[in-house]
């Protein structure tokens, strides 16, 4: 079955692929990813995504993989000029893992390092659309850092609206 890489921009020779999106999704589910699902973006979700991203989402639906309260998202967000493709694993409404999969900008690649990405672990979304924990920036990579923060918020928001997010809410009540 072939099913990944939906929102990842097409790669060119100048792109740096740190991790294959297919491999990231498979690894998140111990090598056996479930079938992908689609989350359709309604007007309310579009407005919420617009709020956290600073621009409207590009598509009418988002593809994701979900199982037992966990979801995996492969999302693109522009740092300065070109999209950064990141993979985000959400476990019951909190970030379990976030990684840079494909980097296309000329600067700001330092965000791929674990010292930066581990700051997102266990972060949740507040009612005002902010992350529950502060993220320290990296000198010279400000726009990439902000792009990663937007991706993290968008993934958490999308998780809330997904089938698995509904499961998370039901379990927390």
């Amino acid at each position: 079955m072939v099913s990944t890489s939906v929102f990842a921009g097409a790669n060119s020779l100048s792109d740096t692929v740190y991790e294959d999106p297919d491999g990231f999704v498979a690894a998140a589910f111990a090598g056996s990813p479930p079938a992908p699902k689609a989350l359709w973006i309604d007007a309310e979700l579009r407005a919420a995504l617009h709020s956290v991203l600073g621009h409207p989402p590009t598509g009418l639906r988002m593809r994701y993989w979900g199982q037992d309260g966990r979801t995996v998202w492969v999302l693109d967000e522009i740092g300065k000029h070109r999209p950064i493709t990141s993979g985000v694993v959400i476990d019951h409404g909190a970030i379990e893992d976030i990684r840079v999969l494909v980097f296309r900008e000329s600067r700001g690649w330092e965000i791929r390092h674990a010292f930066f990405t581990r700051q997102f672990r266990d972060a949740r979304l507040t009612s005002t659309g902010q992350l529950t924990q502060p993220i320290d920036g990296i000198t010279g990579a400000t726009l990439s850092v902000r792009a990663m923060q937007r991706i993290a918020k968008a993934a958490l928001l999308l998780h809330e609206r997904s089938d698995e997010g509904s499961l998370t809410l039901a379990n927390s009540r």
Partner: protein
Amino acid sequence: MAVPDPRQEGRPPRPAVRAGHRLLGLIGVAFLIVLVITGVAAQHPGALGLDQRYLQSRSLLAWYGISAPDVAVMYVDQNTDYVQLGERTYRGQRRLHEVEGGLRGVTTIAGVNLVATDRGVWLYDAKARFIDRFDPPGAPLRLGTSDHAALLETDQGTFLADADFLNWSAADAPRANWVKASQPTEEQRRTFQTRYLDEVLTWERLLLDLHSGRLFGWLGPYVVDATALVLLIVAITGLILAVRPRRAPDSDQ
């Protein structure tokens, strides 16, 4: 009788300085007006819509050396033309901004419009709104259908989509109905090329090129640099005129 020291009284500015200052000032001000207007406008292209407004002047496009590429490929799906010119793909009158790569086929299944290029498959709804995209293994070669399901052949195999276009499974020797390209007529070619040229040159680019001088070729930036020097000279001569005392009234009169 003691001779007055000119260093103490100050020398009046020479007429040549005043005349030169005036002439350079007029030249500089003319350029400055252009630079200020274009500079301020170029600072806010989004707010002013300059990046979305296009100039259709063919003489201006000719000045830039811009011409329309030939139609690379055309497909007709459900009475709608899908055309690729250069890096652009059009669906009828509308440009599909998301699509990248060389067009490999177009088909519509269950109201979903699939546009395949050598870099992936883009999905659109009936109103040409982008749904999402699929990047298959390998480079797509052609698009088709098999029993009302989307079929994609890449250089790494053939893949059959499910009803939601979420899962694409490897398919061995399926019964395929591959999409075929069409040949545009001369009139269609001209129409497509006109459409292309109508959306090439933005006001933003024109103003930026006017601001930098690049509109006037390789010499333009040097002219702008020279203008900056003229303004500097005007500033310096203006300071000289301001600091030095004016000529004393003629005592004989």
